[in-house]
């Protein structure tokens, strides 16, 4: 791929091993454009979540580079790293585990903004003086009634909890939102609602997504481009509308066949 100026994230030759025997990621390279959704599909153990952990700098890569907005994400340390963290946020698979059961929805949603007091997203700028109003707006952006701020996670259904997690994910207006299997623990009908919401927010806020899932149908719906992974390696990457093309890798075709009758 030729170098383009509008690339938000450029990952080159990323490798990571957990121990001598587990090569979680080997030589993975890709780019994410501004406002683009890159889908990552693969089986359990293919390295999808490792990739997310590296991009969040929860783990350190053994080799390779991650350039976010021209900054070397893999080299950042200390306060510089902390400042860059707000550009990359995540929505996890299990919203029940992602939310602290003892915190109210208000506390959970406002946590990122409290951590970065100098950050005010565009969509909250007019009400930045009032934390309460900011939290209310975040909830309404994800389709929840603002009155629910005082509730605790156990009073919400799985889909509603995931909406709270998304509200928190967008609260700093990150450049990149990583969605790691965001619908895998939800009912089919709720999955559709959450995917629609993620798409609405992406268009509204111009964020880029890294959308990780083993569900190729969900990845196809969400993504502009798709990256197929297997055993830590990149099988292939292609434009999403080329998913059913004849030249697809046999492994990709296998993934497609598993969901078509």
């Amino acid at each position, binding site marked *: 791929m030729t170098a383009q100026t509008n690339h938000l994230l450029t990952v080159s030759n990323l490798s990571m091993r957990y121990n001598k025997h587990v090569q979680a990621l080997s030589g993975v390279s890709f780019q994410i454009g501004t406002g683009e959704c890159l889908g990552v599909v693969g089986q359990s153990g293919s390295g999808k979540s490792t990739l997310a952990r590296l991009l969040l700098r929860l783990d350190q890569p053994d080799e390779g580079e991650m350039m976010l907005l021209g900054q070397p994400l893999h080299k950042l340390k200390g306060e510089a790293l902390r400042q860059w963290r707000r550009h990359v946020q995540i929505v996890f698979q299990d919203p029940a585990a992602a939310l602290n059961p003892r915190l109210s929805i208000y506390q959970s949603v406002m946590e990122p903004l409290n951590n970065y007091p100098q950050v005010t997203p565009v969509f909250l700028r007019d009400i930045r003086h009032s934390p309460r109003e900011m939290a209310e707006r975040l909830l309404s952006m994800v389709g929840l009634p603002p009155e629910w701020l005082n509730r605790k996670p156990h009073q919400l259904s799985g889909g509603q909890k995931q909406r709270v997690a998304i509200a928190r994910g967008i609260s700093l207006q990150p450049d990149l939102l990583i969605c790691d299997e965001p619908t895998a623990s939800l009912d089919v009908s709720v999955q559709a*609602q959450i995917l629609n919401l993620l798409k609405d927010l992406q268009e509204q806020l111009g964020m880029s997504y890294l959308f990780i899932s*083993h569900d190729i149908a969900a990845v196809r719906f969400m993504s502009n481009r798709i990256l197929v992974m297997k055993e830590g390696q990149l099988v292939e990457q292609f434009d999403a509308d080329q998913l059913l093309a004849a030249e697809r890798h046999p492994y990709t075709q296998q993934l497609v066949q*598993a969901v078509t009758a």
Partner: protein
Amino acid sequence: MGFDGMLTSGKMGMNKRKSERTSTGTKTTPAERNIPPVLQIDDLSIHTRADSSGKRLVRNLNLTIQPGEMVALIGESGSGKSVTASAVTGLLPAPLSMSGGRILFQGRDTATLTSPERRAMLGKEISVVFQDYAGSFTPFIKIGKQLIEMIRRHMGWNKTTARVLATQALEQVELAAERVMDSYLFQLSGGQQQRVAIAAALMLEPDLLIADEPTTALDTLTGETILQLIDSLRHKTKCAVLFISHDLHHVIKRADRIAVMYGGEIVESGPTDVLVREARHPYTRFLLQSRMDLADVPARLQSIPGEPGAVSACGCPFALRCPVRIARCDSEAVPEMMVSDGHTARCHLIGEAQGDLGAAEITRTS
């Protein structure tokens, strides 16, 4: 099998008179009519309390499964799928109780079983594969030992014979039998663990396998192989399968018949191909529409209107979310109505304004 005498004995007093009316949804071909169903659930109701005062989780459920048949029970979380399965195995968690109806397994009312009889039945005649595959085994005992123990418990065989059967069972699910026998659970991947669970469930050749969301915790490809496995083994052993899932897409490929649950009721049931072509209940239609198509990707997905899990207290359970409901739906309970041979649905709009229930109508109003 001489279970017929059991029909009239035992705790029949608790059954409502209505249970005389067997399911209208189970018309079978003449050839099949002679074979008694493996499982017959008549008019089953389950409440959260023994005296029927609590919340009703399952109401007036009718379902039959023939030998070798795979019947899928689908619906969203809390629709009563797993609770129904627990009632079949007699393992309803403490405060829940059967408040009406009866469950016949091989013609025998399961309510009349003593606990030793039930223990002998579970694992041998009825097996269950759970979503949480890790929970099926003890983590600190080797797989082989657990399988052998299970065989010896049910069959009374010696260790050597039991080991042969356990090895065969693991080979059937395409695992390296010797290595797996000598492994602890944590040494296997999720897909392998679920295969071992299926091997354990099928090695004593049960008459009924209950597969409760067997692939939900697995990725697509692994899940697909697990389903293929269950499918091929049921053809081989003529084992009937009750396949519980929340994903219509998964079951269409495998099941002979589908029963769709909403709010504790089977709102529609029928042969898979008929249901896919001619679904009549709005909820079933929504489920069918929510399947994603890889070739034709819409700007936004079709989702089911209303709050998931919202169940109307009287009338049709789906009334609160249904875009085509009429006044009667909120108040009058819906009887099970026959749409065609083997295809039943509970919707007031059947037989009245059938044309209005078209897909276009639902799309427009949602």
